[in-house]
């Protein structure tokens, strides 16, 4: 079977945005339908839906606030329409166990998602128009940065790093 649906074994689980299926067989179609139904059931749960919808609603507000050049007073570019779309997919693919991010726009028009738990305990990812994910994380004195791509869902590198920081924050009573 060639279906490439995101499986429940992934950290992002069924709620994640599905990876584009390469499958063309009847089995792949059936699995795809089942996946969509299961995902819809999960999204219809108020607890799960509210976090994702809250972030998406905030993204929409940010889009309106940053639609004109110079919105920051320093000549920032307007939010990039494709970066906005990619950010929507990123938010929809976030595992339900991850807290909702704070949303803003970088001065170059990319969408920025920030998880700030405290001083030197933060994760920030910028979502670019082609799905480029540029991230930086601070965990005490440990500083990590990197570049990943959204094309096959949220990369494990980003989920692992975000989880590590969120766990640290929870242990410190910051969540």
């Amino acid at each position, binding site marked *: 079977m060639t279906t490439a649906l995101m499986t429940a074994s992934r950290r992002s689980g069924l709620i994640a945005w599905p990876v584009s299926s390469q499958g063309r067989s009847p089995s792949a179609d059936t699995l795809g339908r089942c996946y969509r139904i299961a995902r819809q059931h999960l999204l219809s749960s108020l607890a799960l839906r509210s976090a994702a919808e809250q972030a998406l609603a905030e993204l929409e507000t940010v889009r309106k606030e940053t639609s004109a050049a110079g*919105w*920051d007073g320093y000549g920032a570019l307007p939010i990039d329409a494709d970066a906005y779309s990619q950010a929507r997919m990123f938010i929809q693919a976030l595992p339900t166990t991850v807290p909702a991010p704070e949303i*803003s*726009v970088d001065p*170059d028009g990319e969408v920025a998602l920030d998880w*700030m738990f405290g001083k030197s305990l933060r994760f920030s990812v910028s979502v670019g128009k082609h799905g480029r994910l540029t991230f930086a994380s601070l965990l005490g004195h440990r500083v990590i940065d*990197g*570049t990943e791509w959204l094309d096959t869902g949220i990369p494990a590198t980003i989920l692992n790093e975000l989880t590590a920081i969120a766990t640290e924050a929870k242990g410190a009573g910051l969540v």
Partner: protein
Amino acid sequence: MAGENAAPVATELAAGERLSRFLFGDRHYSSTKRLVKPGAFDPSPYRELSVGHTTGLTTAEVWSLGEVVRIHTRLPKLYARADIDAAHVVERKLKAIRDDEGYERHTNILGWPDIEDPDTRKRVWKNLATGLADSAALALPTD
């Protein structure tokens, strides 16, 4: 301070000098967490980050300077500012150059690595902006 008719002379600011990034929206900081986001210190799409040199000013004078900057931006409201010691700039191999251009005490943070590959440049600059944001202290007009 430069005299009214004197040509601005660029001066590099050393560790110990205070720089203030004035924020004209509420998206680049969290008032509840008292933290500044990397976007506040991201110079892109340019190669310089505009700040004010606020060493020696009283709190009221700093906000007055922010008001001067706000008038330049033509935006309706000054929401907050992010203060940072120039030491954090210098330790990242950036430079704070006070030039008084546009208004007295205007300063640019320069020296952002000139990297041709856009992916690498974005990553390196985001790292720098994140570090600067984490080192900054948020101040609100209501403080």
